[in-house]
Structures are given as structure tokens and as C-alpha cells.
């Protein structure tokens, strides 16, 4: 019995899986589409006070340039690095990329640390010209004017902490796993009245 169990392929359940429709949409209406982008890895890079250390670490490990305040940088394979605070950066990697990097973690310079938070967040992508209007129901941040392409900010959505960034035509929102039902509920409810 035990043997056969272990042959089961582990089932990965994405954060928003329980709340999206059969086609994977959270919201699918005129001028507004929201879908989950799943399978990415999210690493939290904490840095030391010495900026040379950090720049080097980012380069060596991720081949990334560290962004300045409220920005993101783009790296290989669509990876991204977000500024969270002066000593905190989030690195978003395509799924297969993570293993590769784990090997390099052992050799982190002092003062630099990495924790894996891939399971902690789900990412929603919004497209359509009602996006700002929808989010403005629950966000005090001036997304319309201040969240330009390439900008990334942590803020709140209702009472949930979220992280949002704009990349080209889309707006992305990272939501903590445990808040995903709540956030999805707010989004769906407000979308009815756009």
C-alpha cells in the first residue's frame, strides 16, 4: 500500500484555485479580466547594509540588478526583482528556475539572506480599462496616477496586505494565501458594480 501511495504525483493547488471558475477566471467581464498567474517562485532577499555585497549577491545568484525604491527590474527568463524596502527585495522566478538557485544559497555573503515564500502568495493579473476603477474600491493607493508601468508597491486591499505592480498592459496583485478568499470575495463583489 505504502509504495503505491508514493507514486502519486503531488497535487499542486494554486492559491486562487478554490475561487476561480472552470476556465481559470476570477473575473471575466467586459473591460475587465482577472486571472491567476500561478507556478512562480517567490524568494525574499534580505540584504546587508553594505550595498556592494548586495549588488554582488543579486548578480551572482539571480543575475539581477537590484531595483531602487518602488520599482522592479527584469532579469533572465522573465524573472523580476521588486523593491520592498531598502533591505528587502522580492525575486519572482519561473517555476523550474528555483531549484537551480537553491544550490547557490549556501554561499550567501554575510548579511544577506533568502527565504522562500513561494507558497505564501498568489498572483492575480488584471487587464482591461476597468481595472483601476475596480481596485479603487478597496485601495487607498493612487493606482491610476502613481502606479505606472514598472512600478511596484506594497499597500492594502481592504484589510488585506497586498503587493501590486504594473507591467505593460497588465496590473498584477500579490495576495497572501490566507487572505485570498477575502480578496477574491471583495473583487468579485465590486466587479458587479463597475
Amino acid at each position: 500500500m505504502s509504495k503505491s501511495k508514493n507514486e502519486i504525483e503531488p497535487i499542486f493547488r494554486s492559491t486562487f484555485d478554490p475561487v476561480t471558475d472552470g476556465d481559470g477566471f476570477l473575473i471575466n467581464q467586459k473591460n475587465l479580466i482577472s486571472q491567476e498567474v500561478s507556478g512562480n517562485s517567490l524568494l525574499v532577499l534580505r540584504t546587508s547594509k553594505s550595498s556592494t555585497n548586495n549588488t554582488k549577491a543579486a548578480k551572482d545568484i539571480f543575475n539581477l540588478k537590484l531595483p531602487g525604491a518602488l520599482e522592479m527590474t527584469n532579469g533572465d527568463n522573465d524573472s523580476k526583482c521588486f523593491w520592498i524596502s531598502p533591505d528587502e527585495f522580492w525575486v519572482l522566478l519561473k517555476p523550474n528556475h528555483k531549484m537551480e538557485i537553491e544550490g547557490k544559497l549556501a554561499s550567501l555573503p554575510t548579511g544577506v539572506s533568502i527565504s522562500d515564500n513561494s507558497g505564501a502568495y498568489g498572483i492575480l493579473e488584471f487587464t482591461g480599462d476597468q481595472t483601476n476603477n475596480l481596485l479603487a474600491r478597496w485601495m487607498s493607493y493612487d493606482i491610476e496616477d502613481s502606479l505606472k508601468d514598472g512600478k511596484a508597491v506594497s499597500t492594502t486591499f481592504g484589510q488585506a496586505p497586498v503587493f501590486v505592480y504594473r507591467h505593460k498592459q497588465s496590473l498584477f496583485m500579490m495576495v497572501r494565501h490566507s487572505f485570498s478568499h477575502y480578496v477574491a470575495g471583495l473583487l468579485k463583489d465590486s466587479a458587479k458594480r463597475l
Partner: protein
Amino acid sequence: MRIANHKSSLIDYSKPLSFIFNNKSYKGYQGDSLASALIANNVLYFARSFKYGRKRGLMGAGVEEPNALVSLEIGGRYTPNMKATEVMLYDGLSAVSSSNPNSFDFRAMIKPVHRFMPAGFYYKTFIKQKVWSLVEDSLRSLSGFSKAPSEVDEDVYDHVFQHTEILIVGGGVAGITAALEVLNHSKSARVILVDERENLGGELINEFSTDESSFAWHKDNVKKLLKFKNEENSRLKILTSATAYAWYDHNYIEVLQTNATGQSTLSEGVQSARKALHKIRAGEVILATGAHERPMLFETNDLANIMLSQSVRRYLEEFGVISGKKVILYGNNDSIYSTAIDLNNNSINCKVIDARAPGGESEIVLKAKDSGIDVLQGYAVKKAKGTSSITGIEISKVELQSKPPHWQSKWRLNKDTQTLECDLLATSGGFNPVVHLDCHCGGKTYFDEYSQSFLPQKERKNRKVCGAVNSVGFWKDAIVDAKNKAQQTLESMGEVKKASIQPLSKECLNYYKVDRFFTPIEILNKPKVFIDMQNDVTTLDVALAIREGYQSIEHIKRYTAMGFGTDQGKTGNINGIAVAAEFLDVPMSEVGTTTFRPAYTGVDFGAMAGREVGDFFDPQRYTTIHDSHVESGAEFEVVGQWYRPWFYPKHGEDMHQAVNRECRAVRKSLGMMDASTLGKIDVQGKDAREFLSRVYTNAWMKLAPGSCRYGLMCNEKGMIIDDGVSTCINDNHFIMTTTTGGAASVYSTLEMWLQTEWSDLDVHLNSVTDQFSTVAVVGPNARKLMEILCQDVDFNKDSFKFMQWRPGTVCGVNARIMRISFSGELAYEINVEANYGRFIWDQVAIAGRPWNITPYGTESMHVLRAEKGFIIVGQDTDGSMTPMDVNMNWILAKDKPFSYIGRRSFSISALNTNDRLQLVGLLTKDDQVVMPEGAHIISNKGVSIGYVTSSYYSPALGRSIALAQLKGGLSKMTETVLVKIVQEKQGLKEIPCEVSSSVFYDINGEKVDGNE
């Protein structure tokens, strides 16, 4: 009465509407307000007043209206206390008076008694407590306006955050001008223009028929605005039917917008909210809120059909209705003449009584005279005649006094009176700038002698005022003023180099001039001169308040209830201030105003709450395994924001039965629990150990990688605030767990220490609570199960010891497996990346079937831990217990070099007395009795010496167990104490118990290794 074919501005005669008021059907038109439609139908009485139940008609035409309170609709759309003037008519509308003017009213019937009920009546009566308790309820039943709603609202309310460089409040001529000016001169600034009315234009609309050019201006400029609004990437938002009702710090202004239909709609999944609350953060605010007219005072000034002059004009111009045939206009400023000319143009018989002396007339007065309007100058109205509505007035000549006895009473009345007939009296005592909003957040007013009104303070940061609110009332000057202020705003934003400023015309000053605002003392001393119509406050009430020593305007307000009503004294307060000034014999400026507060006009609680109601009231946080618990029929317990399975009832079990079954499974074979909600903090850096040593009471320097340790956290007061197990991943890396409810506050406290005090420590904290799903596998058979689930870890008890952890692969998923136990049994906690949580849970459940693995909830967890005497922070402690109090001296490191958080407090005297509450076990003598948690232990004198913190039936022991805080408890082992039950639920009164150790089960800890 509706004036046939009036080319009024807002009515659409092609759209007739029917509606019901006080059970009678009426007709009106699209564009009517409820008030105007009722005037058209010759309805005179709208409601009754608060104290005396007097029948009242309309006084105003907008938000200033004090009298005409109605309730709207029924059931889930019932709305109390609406002003008939602010309800826009729709087909099928149904309304009733808040207090029906046509039915019997007790308050009105006891008229002869009114003279014995002066302001402050109740303070002087029913002084015996017993008597007051007897009468209070019947007095209460007389109070209030509409009935409260009785059904749940059918509609929803949205909140919308808005950001703008410039917010313009008021869409009259000033607001429109300001908006265009900034849009024309700035390329980037966003502009939001709000107005509480349905249409832009404000009072200007009333000028249309007298001044053609105003009509043209309006049409032209509204068009320009709409052009801006409809541009692609428009920078302009126009919110109409939208009231700016509150101004908070740092230019945060809240605007309540009502849906055009007044109700929300739902069609094909698209819904609209009944109201939207716009939360506007503005860089600059331009206030163009206009002015409210104020009434003149005289005896029985509350009869129906005594209205404000500007309102009469508004009804005529905007709605084409009027409520009388024979009109008298009475006032102390030029604005009554505009109304008179309007009436005259519409061939309505009218006459002007001007309180000002003849001479020095302005153009408009001459114009009125020229057009044949009968004008009497230098007369004042003494009294309105009529029983419930006005039939005429008594007037007398005004005489100037050479030596006024009072500060203001420059004038008095000649004894001779004349009587004039009329069926509508329109009065104007001048204008009150709508300064309310400006004063919500620190703005001040000053008294302006010229207009006899309180004006907004001239300079304020990031705010300008223009138009009538700035006492620039003449519309052409309002345009100039608005342009000037818009220019200055642009200048302060750096959008233009230097503001271009134009001078105001000479007419402007005249427009606003008010003379003889003060009411002669002969009138003030008469009864029934009403200041606050809604609350029936009269001049004599104010006089009495002052005589009794309630002399500050704030005392007068509170003693008489002046301005307490739904209109917040918009028309009445200024007269109250004037009257107080008179009786106090000081200038009005010295009396000052009462404080202006939100809401400018009422805001529905529903709108304030927005969608943060019901499911969205507070976030509900779920673990990744939540669905499974729901499928298993679990009952949930809310812990912090988390929903945790409480117990899993099967086949009609009650909680007790379910918990017994769950506990037995854990002790005898195997249980599983979702432990994902515990807070988890990733602690990394070379000073991680040092950091843990500083924030926990125990030692951390020697904890080896691969091991875990329990820690207790205190605050600086020395009181326990949290506990949990931390795991050493490697020398620079720990994972700390916190209680479910304490996670957020512990995390921010730890960050605070690091950032504000110990920035020299090389430590980084990351919250990884959501990263891991945790499945606890608990029971003597746990090892057997783990061996099946995970092949790459050696689970032998000697190699994988209690309080250790191992990395491994569980069903193909990377996991950290901790061997820790909150039940005393052999237990493993499997931590996996959250996305695999549900998978692992299911696999554990399947693989555990041979041992009848049983999911258990927080209740069983509590029983199991209580059997072992483990505390729950927050249940067995309450913020006032030290580690010593819970018998955990062993966890206080003695020789840490750093004085860890809370340590210093342990030595202060009150923490070292021997009568402190201390945590002990209690065993009831009757072992089947389960005591209620919260019951107290009493001394032989009957006073409380402690209380029960946790109490359960222990299935393992077949008896009840309890934890308690007992004064000096640790030195009372084996003594007998009495627990007193004050609520005799099971017929119990006093329960004898033996004080015991708090560990009841497996005292020597032999179970933790499980079955071999």
C-alpha cells in the same frame, strides 16, 4: 400651485409622475423634488415639531430645511427622516410625514402647559430616581421623528478612493468657473468637482429669468466643462448629487453620492450601489459652497407658508411652483427684491417690507419700485397671524434709538401696528456662508460686520474659498473671485508663475450688505419666536438659559437643544447667536459660533460602512486545507481572523461526544490536526541566536541545528505575551512560531526592537506564516504513519528525538518535519509549501486509515494540552501573569548577559508577593463535575481568591480537570478549595476541589515516544 407654462429650468413637463404622500395620491413631474411637487398640489403641512408638536410647513428648498421631515418607502427601502426638499421625485414614490401633521398629537394638545415647560424643564423635574424611572419611558415615546426602520436594507453601498490635485466643492457659478480656470491653465492637474444637487449651476439657475445673460453663461460654461469631462484620458470628474460631508486631516474629504434613482438596481448581474462614498484625497481644495439664507424673527414665525425668500424664488424658478397667491417679502437686504421682481414677472401679487430705512437704495430696489412693486421701507414684522398657516402680518415702523440700552438694540418698534394680509411670507435676514466643511478640520471663522455673518478664515493651507461662501454673492463677481482663487491655487501648485488677479465690482459689496439684522427687544421678549424650528427653541429659551447662567453659546446650545436637529441649525443658529448677543449685551463676534462638525448633511450608516459588512466586515482567513474541513462537516472557531476547525461532529454527535471521540483517538491511536494558522517567522542572520535570547526568557545560544525549543516571550512589564516553538535550521537561521492570534503583533514588536534599538544586530525577519501548511500527526501510532509517508527520514526514536526536526520528502513533497507535541503524545508536524497543504492532508488521511486516523479540532487540542498542563496564552494568562506565576521559573535564563525583554520587571516588589495569582490544577471532589470556566475560587470569607481558566472533561482520565489561577496557589498543593458557582446552572453552588499540579496526564512524560 403650479404656475402654468412656467419655462422653469428643471422640470420636464413631458414626464408626469405619480406618488403618494400621507396616504394620498398626487402627481408631479420629472425634475420635481418631493417638496416642490407637494407645493404644486397645494399641500401646506409637512410635519410636526419636536417639543410642542406644532404643525409645520416648508421653510427652505434645500438641505437647510428644518421642518419637512418625511419617511420614504417601506420594508427594506424604508428611510427615516428625509427632508422633503432633498428627495427627488420618481414614479411611485411613497412618503409619510415623520410626525403626521394631520393626526392627533398629544404634544400639541397640551398647549396650556407649554409655558410651564421652559428650556431645561427636565433638569428641574422628576428628581427622585424612582419617579424618573417610572416616567422616563413614557416621555421617551414622545420623542424622535420618524419610526426606525424595521427591515434589513435591500441596497448596497460602495466606497471609492479618489485622488485629485484639486477638489472643488460646490458647482455653482463659482465652482464651475474655478474648475474651468484650472483646467484651462494646467496641463496635468486632475480636478474633481462635486455638488450636492442634481444639476450644476447652484443658485445661478434662479437668475435665469431675470438675467438672460446668466442663462447663456451657464449653458456655455457647463458645455465647456462637459467637453473636458468627455475627453479621452479626461482629468475632470464631475460628481453630482454628491455631498462633501466631512473634511478630515490632510485634505481628506468624504463625499456621499446618491444614485440617480435613489435606490440600487440589479439587472443581469450588473448592479449599482444606492450610494457611493468617495474618499477623496486632494492636493488643493477650492470651496465654492455658496450661502444659506437665514430667516427674520417675529412672533409665531413658525406658521406654515413662512419661507425663506430665496427658497420661494427657487421653487418658482427651478420648479415653477409657488405656495401662495398673495405674497409679502420681508427682509433686511437686497435679495428680497430679486424674489419680488421674479414674482412680479410671473404676475404674482407681492409686496415688500424692508426693515432698512429709506435712502441710499441700490439699483435693484429702484428697479423693483419701477416695476410697480409696493415697497414699504423702515418697517418690521412683529407677528405672523393665523392659526396653523399664515393669513397676515402685523407690522410697525422701526425707530432708531439714540441711546440703545443694549449693544445691538439700536432700533425699536413704534407702538402703532398695521395689519397686512398675505398667504405667503418670504423672509431674508441675509446669508450665511456655508463654512461648515471648512471648519470640520481646524478652520476658523471670523465675524464680518458688513454682512453680519461668520466668514471662513481668509488664509488656510492648500485651500481657497470663492463665491458666496466668501461673501461674494453677486454672480458676476463670483466669477471674478473664482478665477482669482483658481489662479492662486495654480500659483501655489507651481502651475502658473504668478496668479493673475482681477478686481471685484462695486455692486458686489452692496449685494451682500445686511442692515438691521437684530431683532428689536420687544419681539425677542415675546413667546413663540422660534429660532430652531425643529427643536422648538425660542428666543425666550435662549434668554432663560442666559439668566440661569448657561452663557457660553455652547451651553446655550446644550441647554436649549438649539442646532441639535437634522438640519444642524443651518438656518437657526445664526439667529440664536444674535439673540444671545442681545441678551448678553456683547457683540456677536464675542458670542461666536458653536463647533461645526461632520456630517454636513446626514450620512447613512450603510454608506459609512460600505461593503465592509457581513462577510466582508473583517477578513476571514483560511488555511489551504479549509475546504477539506468544510467537507468533513467541521464546526469552526474564530481565532483572530482565522477560521479553525473546532470539532468534527459525526452522525449527530454534540460537541462533547465529538471531542471525547477525537481525544480518545489521539491518545489511543492517531489523530491529525491542521496547525497551519500558527504564526511563523523566519529569523536569519548571524545574530539570530542573540536576538532570540533577547526576546525570549530562556537560553538560545546552544540550541543545535536540527533541534527545536519552546520559548516564552514577555513584555517589558514582565508579563507573558506569547509562546511557541522555534526551530534551529542552522546557526544563522531559525523559524519561530507564535500563537495564532498573536502573530501580527509579535512580528511587529520584534521588528520594532530590531529597527529602533538593535540595528547593530545582523538579523532579518520574514513572515512565512502563509508559506507553510502544517499537518500535525499525533498519537502513539504517529511514527508508523510517518514511516509510510516519508522514506528519506529515519524516524527511530533515538535518531529523531523529541524536539528535533528533519528535512524530508513526504509523498513527493519537500517537507520540514518537526517532532514536537502539544498533546504529550508522540507527534510530528509536517510543514510543506502551502500549495501542497491540501494534498498532504489528504494523503495523511488516506495513509492513516489503518489506524483510524481522526481529524481533531481546537477543542480537543485544548483538552489534550490541558491534560498535560500546557498553558494557552490569553486563556490561562491574561496579560497580568509572569512566568513565575505560571510556575515556569525553569524557563528564565539566569545567566544571559543581555537583560532580556521583561527581565528587569521581575524584581519589582509587586511581582514578588506570595499572594499573587498562580497557575495550578484543580480536581473536583466529584470527578464528574465539569466547572464553568470563569468560576471563582472563594476564601472561607467568601471573597474571590482566584478563578478557573480552563476546564474540561478528560476522556483519558475519565474525570474532569481544570486549570486555575489561585492566590498563592503554588504553595497550596493538595489543599481543598471551594469554587463558587453564582449562576446555578446545574443546581450547583459550591464545588469542593483539590489543588493539584497542573499536569494531570502522563506526569512523567513517558508517552512522548509513542508505541514501539
